[in-house]
C-alpha cells in the first residue's frame, strides 16, 4: 500500500521526547513539524494544516488543552495527546475537548504509531454518510438501524442501540462517559455514569462480549469506552 506523504505536527517541550518523536515519525514516512510552546504549536497547526497533531499537555507557556480547544474551532485534524499516567481527569478533559486518543508517558514507539494509525482511520470512517461498522462478525448498519452478529440479528433496546451506534461511529476512539451520556441521555450529568455502566453491561451480554477480554467494547478505566477496530 503506497500512501502520500503525511504531515505530522509535534508540540512538546522536552527536547529528548521531541527528538525521538521526530525520528519515529520520519522513519514511518511522515514529514514532521516541531513546536515547543502553545503559541508556536497553534501557529503551525493553523498555518500548515498538518494531517495529524501529537500534543503534550504540559507546555511552558500554557496548557496544551487550550491549544486543542482553539484548534477545534476551525479544524478537525486528528489529535493524539501525550499525558501523565496519574492524570485521569486531564485525559478526560482532553478527550472531551476533542482529542482523538491519548498515550500515557512513558510510551514506546510502536504504541505511538498504532494509536496514530487508528486515529487516522477513524477520520475516514466518519466521513462516510451511509456508515457501516464491520469487525469480528459484528455489523452495525446505521442506515437500517440493524445490528447482526455472525449473520444473526441482535435485538437491542433503543438506548442500547444508541450507545452502540455512538461507539461504532467513533470506532477506535475513546468516548468519555460525558460524551456518551450527552448523546444518549441529553441533560444527564457525570454522576449518572452508572446508567451507562448498566447499559454497557447489557450490551456486552447481548453481543457475547466480556469486559476482561473484549472483542467489541473495551473499558478505558476512569475515562470511558472504546469500540475496537478489527
Amino acid at each position, binding site marked *: 500500500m503506497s500512501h502520500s506523504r503525511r504531515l505530522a505536527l509535534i508540540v512538546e517541550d522536552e*527536547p*529528548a521526547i521531541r*527528538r525521538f518523536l521526530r*525520528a*519515529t515519525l520520519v*522513519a514511518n514516512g511522515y514529514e514532521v513539524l516541531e513546536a515547543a510552546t502553545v503559541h508556536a504549536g497553534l501557529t503551525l497547526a493553523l498555518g500548515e494544516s498538518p494531517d495529524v497533531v501529537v500534543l503534550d499537555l504540559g507546555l*511552558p507557556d500554557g496548557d496544551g488543552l487550550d491549544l486543542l480547544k482553539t484548534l477545534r474551532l476551525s479544524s478537525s485534524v486528528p489529535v493524539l495527546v501525550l499525558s501523565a499516567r496519574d492524570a485521569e481527569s*486531564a485525559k478526560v478533559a482532553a478527550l472531551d475537548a476533542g482529542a482523538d486518543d491519548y498515550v500515557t508517558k512513558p510510551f514506546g514507539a510502536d504504541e505511538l504509531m498504532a494509536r496514530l494509525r487508528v486515529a487516522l482511520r477513524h477520520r475516514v470512517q466518519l466521513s462516510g454518510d451511509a456508515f457501516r461498522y464491520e469487525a469480528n462478525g459484528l455489523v452495525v448498519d446505521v442506515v437500517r438501524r440493524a445490528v447482526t452478529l455472525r449473520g444473526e440479528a441482535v435485538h437491542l433496546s433503543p438506548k442500547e442501540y444508541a450507545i452502540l451506534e455512538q461507539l461504532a461511529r467513533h470506532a477506535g476512539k475513546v468516548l468519555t462517559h460525558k460524551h456518551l451520556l450527552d448523546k444518549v441521555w441529553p441533560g444527564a450529568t457525570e454522576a449518572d455514569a452508572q446508567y451507562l455502566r448498566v447499559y454497557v453491561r447489557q450490551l456486552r451480554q447481548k453481543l457475547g462480549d466480556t469486559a476482561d477480554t473484549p472483542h467489541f467494547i473495551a473499558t478505558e478505566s476512569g475515562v470511558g469506552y472504546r469500540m475496537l477496530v478489527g
Partner: protein
Amino acid sequence: MNDDARPDPDALLAHALAEQRGKLKIFLGMAPGVGKTFEMLTAARKKQQDGLDVVAGIVETHGRRETMALVEGLEILPRRIVPYEGRELGEFDLDAMLLRRPKIALIDELAHTNASGSRHPKRYQDVEELLDNGIDVYTTLNVQHVESLNDVVASITRVRVRETVPDDVLDAADEIELIDLTPIELIERLKEGKVYGGDGGERALQNYFTPANLTALRELALRRTAERVDDQLQQHRLRQGIRDIWAAGENVLVCINESPHSEQLVRAARRLADRLNAPWTALYLETERAHRLNETARDRVAATLRLAEELGAETRTLPARIDLADDMLDYAREHNVTQIVIGKSRRPRWFEWLHGSVVDSLVRKAAGLTVVVIAEAAEAPGEKLAASPLQFDAGPPRAYAESLAGLAGVSVLGYFVDQIINIPNISLAYLPVILSAAIRYGQTPALITALLATVAYNFCFTEPIFTMHIASAENIVALAFFGIIAVLASRLAVRLREQTLLARAQADATATLLAFARRMAGIRKLDELSATTAQEIRNLLRVDAVVLMPDAAGRLAMRGSAPAAALLSEADLAAAQWAFEKAQAAGRGSETLPGAKRLFLPVRTANGVVAVMGVSREEAEFQISAAQRRLLESIGDLAAVGVERVRLAKDVDQAKVAADQERLRASMLTAVSHDLRTPLAGILGALSSVRAYGAQMPAAERDALLLGAEDETQRLARFVSNLLDLTRLDAGALVPKTETMQLAEFTRSLLQRLKGSMGAHPVSLKLPQDLPALWLDPALFEHVLTNLLDNAAKYTPEGSEIEVIAQRHRFTITLEVRDRGPGIPPDELGKIFDLFHRVRQGDKARAGTGLGLAIARGFMQAMGGSIKARNRKGEDEGGGAVFEIEFPARLIVLRGQTEIPPI
C-alpha cells in the same frame, strides 16, 4: 409515618443494656421465716441440675434444718474475715466471686450492711457490681427493708429497720418472686421453733409476729409485687412503642424543709407518683431561715434531696420570697404540677395565728390543684434547728454611736422645730434613724435603736417634756403605737436587708462562675485548666481540691490541685477511678468507698467522663451540702466545656497538620513521579524507536537518539542521587567533610564539566583576583552550585545568558547566579527553597525541580553558609532571578589557619 409510635430509643437501649447485664432475681418475703432462703436454694438447685454453674456467695441458714440440707452439694464461696470491734465477721467476698465468675451467684439478705472497710457499704451495691459483670444473682429481701416502705412498716410494727434497699434496686430486678405464707402458718412455724432457735421465737411472737402485723406486712408485700408487675407492663409498653403512659398528665410536687419528717414526705410522694404513673419533683425553698440553719439541719436537707433523687425524683432548690405558698404555687403552675404533697407540723395554735400557716395559705390559693397534706408529729422538743431570728448579734459599737447621734440630732432639731411650728406627729422623725440602723447593722442594733427612740420621744416630746413621765392617756397610746411601729419597721427593714444580702451572695456566686467561665475560655492547655479548676473550687467552696484526668495510657493522674502538691492515698485513687469509670460520685460522703478522704465527682461531657474532681477538708466529719455539691457540679460542667474545647482545638490543629502533610505528600508524589517519568519517557521512546524503526533511519539520527537516551539516563541518575541526598539531609546524618577550597578554581572547573547540560545558555564568570580560600565540603558544594546552575538553565529561555559572579565584602564573600528568565513571582520568593515547591506546579513544570533548591539550601546550611533568592531590578533591566550564596566570615580561611573554627 407516625414517629410517635416508634419505640422509645432510651427504653430500647436500657433493654439492650439489661441483656448484657446479669439478671437479678429477688425472693421477696413479708417477714423473716417465710422461707425465702429455702425457695432461693430450691430454685438454685434446679438450675444446677440443668447444668448451670451456681455458687453460693452468702447463705444464712439460721440453723434451719431443711435449709441446711439444701445447701449441701452447692459450691460455697469462703467468707472474707473482717475484724470488727474485737470480733471477726464473715463478710461476702466480692472479689473472689468476680474472679470465680459463676453463671448464678446466691447472695442472701440483700439489705445487709457490710462491715466498714468493705468496698461498698451496702450489700446491694456488691450485687450491682456482680450484675454489671454479667453474673446472674439470686437474692432475698424482706419487705420492711424496702426504702419507700420503711416508714409504713415502722408505723405498723413499731420497729424501725435501719437497713434499707433503694427502690431502684427492686425496680431494676428482672424477676421478683413473692414468697407468700399466711400469717397463721408463719406463726405456726415460729412456734415450732423453725424460725428462731431457743426462746427467741417467743419474744418475737409477742412483739413482731402478731397476726395483725403480719397481715399488714403481707398486704404490703403483695401490693409491692403487684406494683412491680404493673411496672413491668409499663416497661413492656414503652418498649413496644405504646405511648400515652402519662395519660393522666399527673405531675407530683413534694415540698420539703429541714424537718426530719421531710423524708417521710418524700417517700409518700414517691408512692403517690408511682401509683399515678407520674413524674415527680422535690422542691426545697430556701428561706432566709435557711441561712441560720445549723449543720445538722443543713445535712438533713441535703440528705432528703438526695433520697428524693435516689427514689427517682427531680430536685430543685429555689430561693424563697415573702410567701412560701405563693412560691410553691408559682412553681407548680409553671411546671404543670397536678398534686402537691406537703407536710403539716403540729404547732401550737398561737404560733400559727402569729406566723400564719403555709398549708392553710396553700390550700386556700391552690385552685384546681390537689394538695395532699401529711400530718407530721410535733417537732421533737429540745431540737433547735435554726438560730432564733431574735438572735443577739450586737453589731459594731459604731452602730450604737451612730444611732445615739442620730436620735440626739433628731431630738434637738425636732425640739426647735416644734417650738416654731407645732407638728402633731413629730415621732415620725425618728423612723429614718431606726430604719437606717436596721438596714446597715441588722436586727439587734435596730431593736435597741427603736427602744431608744421610744424613750427619746417620751423624754423630748410628750408632756411633761424632759421627764420620763407621761401625763395623758392620749400620749400613752401614742407612745405605744410609736413603739410598735418602730419595731415593725425595723423588722421589715432587717428582712429587706437579709434578702438583699442573699441576693448579693447569689449574684456573687453567679459572677464568680461567670468569671471562671471567661478565664476558662482563654485556656489552651489541659494542665492549666485543671489547676484553674482546682483553684476555683477551693476559692468558692473553701475546700482543698484536686482534679484528675486520664493520661495517654488512660490511667487517672492528678493534673491540678489547690493547695499545690496534694497527695492521693490508695483509697482516694480507687474512689477517683470508680467515679471516672462509673460516672458516679465516690469517696467520702457517697455510697461507694466512703472510707476515702476525699469526695470525687465526675466531670461529664456529652462524650463521657473526661475528668474527676476531688474535694476534702481537714475535718473528721467532712460533708458537703447539696447546694455546695450543686455549685461543685456547675464548676465541673464549666470545666467539662473547657476540656471539650481544648480537645477540639487540639483535634483541629492535628487535622490541619495532617492536611498539610497530606498536601506535601501529594505534591511530593506528583513531583517525584513527574521527575522520574520525564527522563524515562525520553529513554523508552528513544530506545523503542531505534529498535522498531532503526533500519529506516540514517545512522546519524540513530546515534542522536541513543545519545539522547544516555543524557536522559544521566539526568535520571542525578535526580535519584538528589533524592538520596535529601534523605540524608532529612535524617540529619549529614556531616560536612570540610577542607580549604579555592572558590574561583573550583567554579571554573565545575562549569567546564557542566557545559553539556547547560544547553544553549552562554555562561559568563566574574571572579575577583584576591578571593581567599574557603572552608567547604567540595562534594556538597558541587551539588549546591550544580543545582543552582541547573535551575537557571531550566527556567530561562534557551540562549539567554547566565552569570556567575563572586564578590568580596567587608566580612563576607558572596557568589551569585544570575539569569535572564521570567524571574520569581514576589509571593513565591519566600517559598522557593521549600521542599517540592515549584513555581509552576504539576505536569507543566520542567523536570528536575522541586528538590534542587531545597537540597542546595540544606547543604549550604550544613556547611554554615546561606542562600537567598531575589529578582533583578533597577540597573539590571531585562529582569531575571538572582540566587546568592553567602559565605560568612567564619568560612573564610585566614592566613596560617589550618582548622575551621567551631561555631
